[in-house]
């Protein structure tokens, strides 16, 4: 807790000052031993986890991925020679609880920093508290909220590209290879609106046109009645749905077109994260395209780092758990927890991190980073980090459903996803 004094609480301050003084007296003469003990203490990293709630399928894999990364990190000597612990705490995918979890991890579990949040509303609900606590808060969300400037100096996204960059990178491929008249189907809330706004602009910049926006209310459980709104001259249907009804959405879209002619389909894999694309009813997806942050199926040209990562997390070549082929990974997103953990390692080592008093140095160390080379720490691929916007930019994949697998047909360049800075966090105070 920030113990900033105010005119309202001189007594509290004096109480705390007295306690601190007492503590200092107790440790007088033991300073050297204390410092030595502290330097070998484990570094504790709080992980705000969607273990329950709408993000639970992501949370399950985020936990597995982060745990696998932790094992690799500790086997490699930890951070600054100190072992590292992850402290997982469920936030129920709820923003109010999310803020409480940041509080709990920081002030009760004594974590050095907090990471791991995926869902945007939980990030936005939690970030103000992280800023007040002055604790680094490293999210794995892909939301544009960090780079948009709406958060604070302590909140960063070094492990995954944001949605604005992702859709901007997709647009040239879609308009050049699939068609220029596009109908977008998206959930009628902020996540969907981001896709609507950024993709529409990106398509226009490529000479294409979004001819129809179909927003689906978040409470909807059946989608067939929306499909007649798709204009007949549509070349491409762009779909991005999330939540428990995604499978129904995709199945009903297939039933709507049946075996007849249909527009090209381009979807964000969010529509099918943790869902087997060979599920009954999804046969019509054959030949359609998807965005994937990290291809679920092991590609023919997969790097040794990708193979190492896949084996360490326990994912087979089809993107399922090695112990349960029906347990499909959230592969397109979960690499972000792995990579974020290694960014933390490098930042702490660069900052000479000793304890919570050095938290600001972690933020400054990350802000100073510019490039992450592909390797064991970054198996998804190389990245460029923008210290001003606290946002990373990486390569995106477009895969095609062929023979029941997702096969990469295109990879964006780093530059495809760049856009002008919207904020400079480094000018903000801590």
């Amino acid at each position: 807790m920030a113990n900033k004094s105010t005119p309202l609480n001189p007594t509290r301050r004096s109480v705390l000052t007295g306690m601190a003084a007492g503590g200092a007296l107790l440790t007088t003469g033991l300073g050297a031993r204390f410092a030595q003990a502290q330097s070998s203490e484990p570094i504790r990293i709080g992980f705000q986890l969607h273990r329950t709630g709408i993000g639970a399928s992501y949370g399950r894999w985020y936990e597995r991925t982060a745990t696998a990364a932790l094992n690799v990190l500790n086997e490699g000597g930890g951070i600054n020679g100190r072992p590292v612990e992850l402290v997982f705490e469920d936030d129920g995918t709820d923003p109010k609880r999310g803020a409480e979890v940041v509080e709990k991890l920081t002030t009760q579990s004594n974590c050095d920093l907090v990471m791991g949040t995926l869902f945007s509303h939980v990030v936005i609900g939690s970030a103000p508290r992280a800023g007040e606590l002055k604790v680094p808060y490293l999210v794995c969300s892909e939301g544009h909220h960090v780079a948009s400037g709406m958060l604070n100096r302590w909140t960063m996204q070094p492990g995954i590209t944001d949605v604005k960059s992702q859709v901007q990178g997709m647009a040239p491929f879609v308009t050049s290879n699939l068609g220029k008249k596009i109908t977008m189907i998206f959930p009628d809330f902020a996540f969907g609106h981001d896709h609507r706004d950024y993709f529409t602009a990106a398509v226009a910049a490529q000479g294409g046109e979004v001819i129809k926006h179909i927003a689906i209310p978040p409470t909807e459980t059946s989608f067939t009645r929306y499909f007649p709104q798709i204009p007949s001259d549509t070349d491409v249907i762009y779909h991005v749905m999330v939540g428990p009804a995604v499978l129904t959405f995709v199945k009903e879209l297939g039933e709507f077109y049946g075996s007849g002619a249909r527009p090209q389909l381009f979807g964000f894999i969010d529509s099918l994260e943790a869902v087997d694309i060979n599920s009954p009813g999804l046969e019509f997806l054959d030949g359609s395209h998807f965005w994937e942050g990290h291809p679920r199926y092991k590609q023919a040209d997969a790097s040794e780092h990708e193979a190492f990562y896949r084996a360490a997390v326990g994912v087979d070549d089809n993107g399922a758990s090695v112990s349960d082929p029906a347990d499909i990974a959230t592969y397109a997103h979960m690499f972000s927890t792995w990579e974020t953990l290694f960014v933390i390692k490098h930042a702490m080592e660069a900052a000479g991190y000793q304890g919570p008093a050095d938290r600001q140095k972690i933020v400054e160390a990350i802000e100073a980073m510019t490039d992450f080379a592909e390797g064991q720490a970054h198996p998804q691929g190389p990245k460029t980090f923008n210290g001003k916007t606290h946002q990373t930019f990486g390569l995106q994949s477009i895969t095609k459903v062929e023979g029941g697998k997702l096969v990469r047909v295109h990879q964006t360049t780093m530059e495809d996803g760049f856009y002008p800075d919207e904020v400079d966090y480094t000018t903000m105070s801590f």
Partner: protein
Amino acid sequence: MTVDRALFLHLGLIAALLAFHFVAPAYHHTNIARIMVLAIYAMGYNIAFGYTGLLSLGHALFFGSGLYAAGLLAYHADGTAGIGLIAGLLAGGAVAFALGLFALRTAGVAFMIVTLMFAQAGYLTVLYFGSYTRGDEGIVIPKAGRMLASLDLSDDNTRYLVALALFAVALLVNLWLARSPRGRIMVAMRENEERSRMLGYNPYTVKLTALTISGLYAGLSGAAYALMFGYAGASLASVQYSILPLLYVLLGGAGTVIGPFLGALLMFYLIDYASSITDAHQFVTGVALVLLILFAPKGILGTIRERGLKWLP
């Protein structure tokens, strides 16, 4: 004598919370600030449900009205916290009054359904106007909007003391109301509406007043939550936030002044503790509530009042 004991008890709670400020560990310090804000909401719910017998499933609409009145003013109009708190208070009261004009033409299960539907419409309205509210993602309240005169509500100590001040006022007004003639008429409506009508009281007016006061509490709580914790999002106006105050009140004791605070306190720490030992924390919470309903249907303070402390208001 009874009056003094009750007053001392409530003043004692306020004094204990003030004392807690000086000794509380950091984690619990912020938790109690949060609980006090939510307890104001639960107190408001208790005025409608515990004292007047209005079982509403739509109070998230009033809480959300206060939340967004304060949040949007700060976000879009550079409003300060003082204006936000007043706006939230009035928004909650006004929306409750307007809802009451329609919903109080029904009673019982129909009242529950009508209030639930209005609240759901309010939730969807927040999503519909996503360009202003950022819908489900929500908005971060700017620091300037969290200044109450010279007091910075993002500061832990200030936040606690302002939360305590609001809680203390809400608690004492609630105590006064519960022991006032108006409060007794509200209880009479709960116990036997037809007999109250026969005695010359207008049930519609009494219930509309109670619901409006309840809305004022909920709106103030919503505004305080947004300004003190820096966030306003649609999930805080969802049906879950209509259920939560009901659970707080049932747990602490419906129709008791301190019950809502006690319920909010216990529920918060039950969830907090259960989630640290099991993934199935919602199951643990559910079992605790079922046991409560089976063995102490009047809640903790309701049961204590029944078994001894008859003077407990």
